[in-house]
């Protein structure tokens, strides 16, 4: 039987961390892109479009991420679409992330006083000009902190991808545990690595919040 030294455990976990980071980044990029599109759609003030976005948000916020992953992974293959664990993980995390970001950003846009829209209108700016010059520059400042804060949820969410067989930090953690029978040590290390990934983001988010709060 192979013996795992502490060094082996740690180096394996760190290797797997790369995949966790990669998956997080991919999901975050996918999520922000989709959320941008949905936010733009929502701002068109078209009733039907708004209802669709609302439904999308409710659907993905109202169901467990794990079920979404199962549906993407097993569901899509049942329908005849071959999808890798990696693909299913990215797809479901993108859907999940975008549903939350759309809501977060909606809040940011809605916190701007109605007077900003009215003043722009009275100066003759079109809807798009108002959005571009007045609303977005202000909303983005407000949105950065909660968006960075939410990225922590995305990182933690990637752990679920282990269940559909994607080999990332949590999955390697379970594998190492099976080999070493040292759950406390292995999972404490896994948790520690997640913490090291997430804590700086939380701090950064708090820092941003303070910074933008003061300058407004």
């Amino acid at each position: 039987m192979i013996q795992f030294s502490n060094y082996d455990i740690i180096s394996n976990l760190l290797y797997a961390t790369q995949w966790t980071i990669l998956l997080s980044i991919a999901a975050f990029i996918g999520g922000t892109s989709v959320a941008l599109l949905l936010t733009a759609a929502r701002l068109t003030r078209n009733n039907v479009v708004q209802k669709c976005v609302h439904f999308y948000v409710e659907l993905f916020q109202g169901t467990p991420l794990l079920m979404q992953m199962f549906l993407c992974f097993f569901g899509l293959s049942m329908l005849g679409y071959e999808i890798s664990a990696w693909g299913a993980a990215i797809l479901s995390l993108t859907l999940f992330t975008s549903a939350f970001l759309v809501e977060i950003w909606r809040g940011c846009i809605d916190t701007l006083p109605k007077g900003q829209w009215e003043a722009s209108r009275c100066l003759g700016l079109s809807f798009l000009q108002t959005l571009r010059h007045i609303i977005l520059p202000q909303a983005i400042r407000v949105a950065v902190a909660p968006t960075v804060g939410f990225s922590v949820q995305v990182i933690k969410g990637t752990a679920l991808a282990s269940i559909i067989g994607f080999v990332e930090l949590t999955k390697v953690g379970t594998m190492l545990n099976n080999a070493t029978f040292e759950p406390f040590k292995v999972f404490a290390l896994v948790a520690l690595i997640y913490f090291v990934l997430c804590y700086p983001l939380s701090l950064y988010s708090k820092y941003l919040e303070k910074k933008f709060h003061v300058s407004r």
Partner: protein
Amino acid sequence: MSLVNLHQVHKYYGDHHVLKGIDLDINAGEVISIIGKSGSGKSTLLRCINGLEEYQQGGITLDGNEVTTEDIQVRRLALSVGMIFQNFNLFPHMTVGENIMLAPTIVLKKSKAEAADIAKAMLEKVGLAEKFDSYPEKLSGGQQQRVAIARALAMSPKVLLCDEITSALDPELVGEVLKVLEQLAKEGMTLILVTHEMNFARDVGSRVVFMHKGKVWEQGDSKTLLSDPQTDELKQFIGAVL
């Protein structure tokens, strides 16, 4: 022909009948003070004139053009109507100069340099030439409101609508804003003000419109009307505010 004409304008918020058949004719160069209790429909009336609020019956024309809330129509209106708000509504992420230059550059398609010249001239006019590069938050309320006036003036409007523009100011800052308005009035700018400043209405205004229960209850030359009100409602109102 009158510059602004309202004919039998009715406005409802749901079941609430806010404006009940407003007729009003305003000529170029007039300074109209709209007074009345809160809830009498003064601000709503003002906001109908530049298309911020929809009205359900009647007609409003501005310089011969019909006023509607259609986006494109409102934008055309913006070229002849300026609006100043109670809460200034400056753009907080832009400097004073940028606030004023924005509409001339992107709506009137003027060059940056041209817009900057306009902005400087307008700031000069409201006595804030040195604040070009300041951010709004660094200014007092009175200064912010003067910047808002400069911003509206930069579009060279024919009419300036002022919606209780001194109501959010500390008492000692009201004077500086009124002084700017007085200057504009002297230069012949058409002003329509919703205001509680009775002294200003009497001394600077040409006509006072007293609104009550969604109607123009009484109107007339400002000095005559305020010293010799005809209706009990206006008498009561003047008694209450003075």
